[in-house]
């Protein structure tokens, strides 16, 4: 099992997917699943690191957790919306919460989808990614 620090794993020609997630186990599982699917990953464990990372290496899609230390998912959404370089990146929220108010708010801030982790399997996350970026 490979572990990630903040960083990039290269895979030429592959689509780049950024993950901002503070839950180590979820991160590990996603990483395995996504690499197996052939994606290249940009991984951050909080919003602040994540924003730095995606500004540097523009990803094709972002998997974004909401409750994270230092900078949460909503703040990331707000900042991305203000940034012309980042505002077009498709975003899928992966969260343990999922109240309609929150989902609405995320949608208004440009998120494409909202997955409640307990209601989805990792495979379904892959399906949702494919729906966004083919």
């Amino acid at each position, binding site marked *: 099992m490979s572990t990630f620090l903040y960083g990039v794993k290269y895979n030429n020609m592959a689509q780049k997917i950024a993950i901002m997630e503070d839950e180590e186990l*979820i991160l590990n599982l996603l990483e*395995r699943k996504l690499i197996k699917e052939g994606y290249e990953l940009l991984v951050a464990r909080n919003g602040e690191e994540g924003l730095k990372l995606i500004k540097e290496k523009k990803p094709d899609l972002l998997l974004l957790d909401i409750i994270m230390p230092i900078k949460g998912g909503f703040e990331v959404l707000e900042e991305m919306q203000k940034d012309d370089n980042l505002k077009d990146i498709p975003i899928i929220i992966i969260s*343990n919460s999922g*109240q309609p108010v929150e989902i609405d708010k995320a949608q208004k801030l440009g998120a494409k989808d909202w997955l*409640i*982790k*307990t209601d989805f399997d990792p495979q379904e996350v892959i399906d949702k990614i494919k729906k966004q970026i083919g």
Partner: protein
Amino acid sequence: MAVEKKEDEKISTLLEDLDSLENYIRDLFAFLPLPVFLLSPAKIILEANPAFEQITGYGVEESIGKSIEDIFNAEEIESLIQETLEKGSIRAKAIFLKTKSGEKIPISAATMLRKGEEGDIVGYFFSLFNLTDIKKKENELINTQKSLLNILEDTESARKEVETERNKTLSIVNNFTDGLLLFDKERKLFLANPQIEKFFGIEKEKIIGRSIKELAPLPGFSSLTDLLGEEIKEAFRKEIIFKEKLNLEVSTISIASGGEKNEALVILHDITREKIVEKMKTEFVSLAAHQLRTPLSAIKWTLRMLLDGDLGEITREQREFIEKSYTSNERMINLINDLLDVTRIEEGRYLYKPVMTDIEKIVQSVVKSYKEEFSRKDIKFKFKVPANKLPKVLVDVEKVGLVVENLFDNALRYTPSGGEVIVSLKDNKKEIEISVKDSGVGIPEEQKEKIFTKFFRANNILRLDTEGSGLGLFITRNIVEAHGGKIWFESEMGKGTVFHLTLPIKKEFEEFLKDF
């Protein structure tokens, strides 16, 4: 002799004159409309006129020779005579007269003492004036006066009442925690309470008399005037935000006063605190969901990937254990979801974005996911849909799906193998009815009342399984009622239960119009 003759002639002329004078007096006496009579010193009536006859009922002949005490009260008449003796005459004295038929008539009597040439008393003149009419008038006058006084009193007390009411209304208006604006028929503001001054930070003198158009440019008013419009549209609990930190709920009420156009009352209710609490609750539920679900989602994903072979090969035995763990974890996830749903129900904002939907589709999708489970448990399953297409209903699709799932789940759980479950849809014209009938264990009679309460689980099913959260039917009823529907059931122990629920049909067209 000539002289004598002359004297005789004179006497005869005098006698003639006297005779005509007597006739004159008699005529006058008879003609007088006032009852008049002459009384002897021995108080016997000597003479009386027709008017006297009329008032007393005694004929003129009959009265003459009658004692005065037969006609008047002895004491009253005695004192009147004494007074006459002393003063010579009395102009008016009110006494009572007794008629032949025994009736008592109030009269005013005037008297005059008659004296002979030597100053001896020869009798009394009496003249009477009937006071009946005057008394009657007087009584009427008194009554009129009394009733006038009563009216005045009533008016006064009514005035006081109105004043009290007015003071009450004013103190309500002035101390009301909601802001009140009252517009007249011309849509000009004529009343604003102190709370309005507080909300807008403006003295009411500066806004009274203004129309909506004239209020709009004042600081802070535009969001309100935009919502109301010049004609003051109907509004019910519409939210607006003032000065960034003040959340107000606006309602308008048309006050009927008979004309074509009515006065309009605008109520502004401060919901800033509720908004803050709501936000805190959202944040709390979000955090609770996060804390409770985080470990469960990690376990779910790990087990799933193990089962999918993403983390390497596993043995058949390992697979069995992992599958069981996965199911247990799912149960825990469902329990947490129920708990979070309950929290949101109790916040009162469980329904979210209702849309016009085909109810059959919602039920069909739940049927699809349960069909296999029913057949696995060897339960016959039927889904009955009416031949005619059902009208659409305005519902929160996800929540109504949850309702159907809950009912299916109970039917599946509490119907033994070999049983039957029938789901049917019915068009009741004003509502759609969904029924779920099972041949299950039934609900004990003494526990039927509690079936929809939170955390309730019936005795007989507790023995069957210990999995349920006791929240399903509580959530179900809340969702149905939030849609304006009803839920009820019939159940017989050992034979089965039917749950019925209704969802009201709102015509799409009405909904369409509502937005204008």
